[in-house]
């Protein structure tokens, strides 16, 4: 039987959470896994339906976290309210600190190693990571101007520095970089 997976939570995640509860020797049959998977989706729909009704009654267009919590309480899941409220307040606290620091804004990849770079443009991504090669567009020449990177001043690691003719020959198509600095050198 073919099940459309995008209407369910990924089964690997479901199993992982089940395993937290079960003793190590426990086995889970495939149909039990699928049933739990289906129940989760049903749970989401059930709660959302109630939350949405409340929004409509109050003539609001957006289903909020509070609506979800209210619906859960109404439908008997009071035990969840406390841990969820705590979770939500921690999340909001974290979001607040993040927004005040543009370092974390709108990132597509997280790698934690960005701290050494100045958050000039609201995106980050040290060129030293393998992923950088996939999106060279992020590192347009003009964009580099704001970053302090060790060697940008034309230090010796490029074997020549600014003005060296051999360095500029190697830097065909990268003339805007100046100083012989090429963050993608390691990817060539």
């Amino acid at each position: 039987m073919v099940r459309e997976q995008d209407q369910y939570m990924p089964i690997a995640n479901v199993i992982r959470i089940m395993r937290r509860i079960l003793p190590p020797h426990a086995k889970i049959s495939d149909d039990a896994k699928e049933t739990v998977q289906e129940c989760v989706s049903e749970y989401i729909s059930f709660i959302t339906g109630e939350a949405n009704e409340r929004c409509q009654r109050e003539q609001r267009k957006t289903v909020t976290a509070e609506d979800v919590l209210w619906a859960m309480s109404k439908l008997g899941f009071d035990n969840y309210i406390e841990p969820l409220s705590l979770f939500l307040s921690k999340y909001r606290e974290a979001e607040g600190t993040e927004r005040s620091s543009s370092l974390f804004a709108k990132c597509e990849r997280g790698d934690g190693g960005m701290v050494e770079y100045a958050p000039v443009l609201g995106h980050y991504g040290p060129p030293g990571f393998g992923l950088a090669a996939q999106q060279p567009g992020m590192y347009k020449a003009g964009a580099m101007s704001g970053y302090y990177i060790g060697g940008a001043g034309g230090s010796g690691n490029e074997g020549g520095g600014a003005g060296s003719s051999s360095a500029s020959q190697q830097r065909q198509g990268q003339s805007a970089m100046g100083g012989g600095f090429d963050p993608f050198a390691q990817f060539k």
Partner: protein
Amino acid sequence: MRQAGKYSGFMMCGGIAGRTGPHSLPLARIKKIMKKSGEDVKMISGEAPIVFSKACELFIEELTRRSWATTLQGKRRTLHKDDVASAIVATDIFDFLVSMVSETASHSEDGTVPEEEETVGSS
């Protein structure tokens, strides 16, 4: 192929992944299911799927706990669909799930337990 790092998982933003933890449930999927719950679900705040990601964990944990209790009563070590069905029937707040488990006939044990497969990766 993405390089698995400290923040691998559905949320690549360093900050959020650190808060909800890696291996949390995928928000986009949650949002999709929320939208499908009714024709008239219009807008969903960013926080609502986040609350659900945690709520679904709690839900799965509770359902599993209750199901496993039935498994133990039957002196078995394999959690079957019937155990989940029993847990649902025995729990008032799981009434909304009754229709999901009453359709199929009782699962009969044929003696073979399929090898549990751990599918790799989560979206």
